[in-house]
């Protein structure tokens, strides 16, 4: 009927994105190793972005200098985990099953960003694709696929008994 109803929708958009941003930040802050790396959530043009500020402890080759491959691994794995957890209605903490990361360009000693794309989120598993870049997003330095297992309440109990 009238278009005024439709035009109201985008106004609620930024507020929701703000809440999503706070949700991701809260999930990230619960991970001690993510805090150690200094990861933080930022709002990008096309969605949420995880930012890893550069510091000396992240360097893997001090002669180039370049970031350590494991640091990019951590950025990708933790971005995937937060993305999968934020999508889960029960906010269950996913277990990382495996990750496969391809290194595409040299990672310079500077700020690095990562964005997640949920390939599939099921009731028990999630598959997340993560892209990392430094300058332009169109020139990624690494990309990875992370497979996550979302624990059922029953499985959580079984885990505890196993120990």
């Amino acid at each position, binding site marked *: 009927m009238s278009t005024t109803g439709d035009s109201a929708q985008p106004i609620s958009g930024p507020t929701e994105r703000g809440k999503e941003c706070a949700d991701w930040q809260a999930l990230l802050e619960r991970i001690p190793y993510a805090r150690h790396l200094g990861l933080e959530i930022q709002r990008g043009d096309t969605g949420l972005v995880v930012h890893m500020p550069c510091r000396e402890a*992240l360097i893997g080759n001090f002669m180039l200098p370049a*970031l350590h491959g494991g640091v990019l691994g951590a950025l990708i794995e933790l971005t995937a985990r937060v993305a999968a957890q934020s999508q889960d209605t029960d906010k269950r903490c996913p277990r990382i099953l495996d990750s496969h990361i391809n290194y595409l*360009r040299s990672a310079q000693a500077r700020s690095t960003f990562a964005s997640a794309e949920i390939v599939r989120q099921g009731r028990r598993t999630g598959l997340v694709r993560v892209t990392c870049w430094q300058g332009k997003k169109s020139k990624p330095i690494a990309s990875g696929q992370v497979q996550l297992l979302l624990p059922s309440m029953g499985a959580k109990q079984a885990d505890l008994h196993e120990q």
Partner: protein
Amino acid sequence: MTESNRAQHSDAVVTAWQFTEQVPHGRDLGMQVVSVNGNQICMSVTPQPWMFADEDTKEICTSVLYSLADSAGGLAVFAGALELMPIATLDLRMDYLRPAIGDRALLAVATCRHLTDEVAFIHCDILSEGDSELLATANATFMRNTQGQRFQAGGRKKEGA
């Protein structure tokens, strides 16, 4: 102990060993080279509370194991090749078989499985010290002789920017 083990190796392996122990990220995590035997190397990390993936479960973050596998894999390339040259990780695949819980040191045993002029294929197992059960396994491919290609190109760009 490590000093006497080091003395038995070629200059290239000793230099790579020393270089590995100087890497800032490795030092941050407290990575140490335990041994080099032929084309197989062993590195360790002692768990710290800031490495947890979760404060409640006290599970070590998988990414710490990932970093350890990447560093161990890199050193295994030099142990297999016995010559110094710039290398770069092309890809790395980790399978996390069990959660890493507890305060025992994490050990990575990396082996250079195959070497060509351009590429090194590495396998790495990660275990808790004193335990034979695998925590994780990794397969990685490293590019050899990367100098003058991607890295210098990146460096030039950086200077120009």
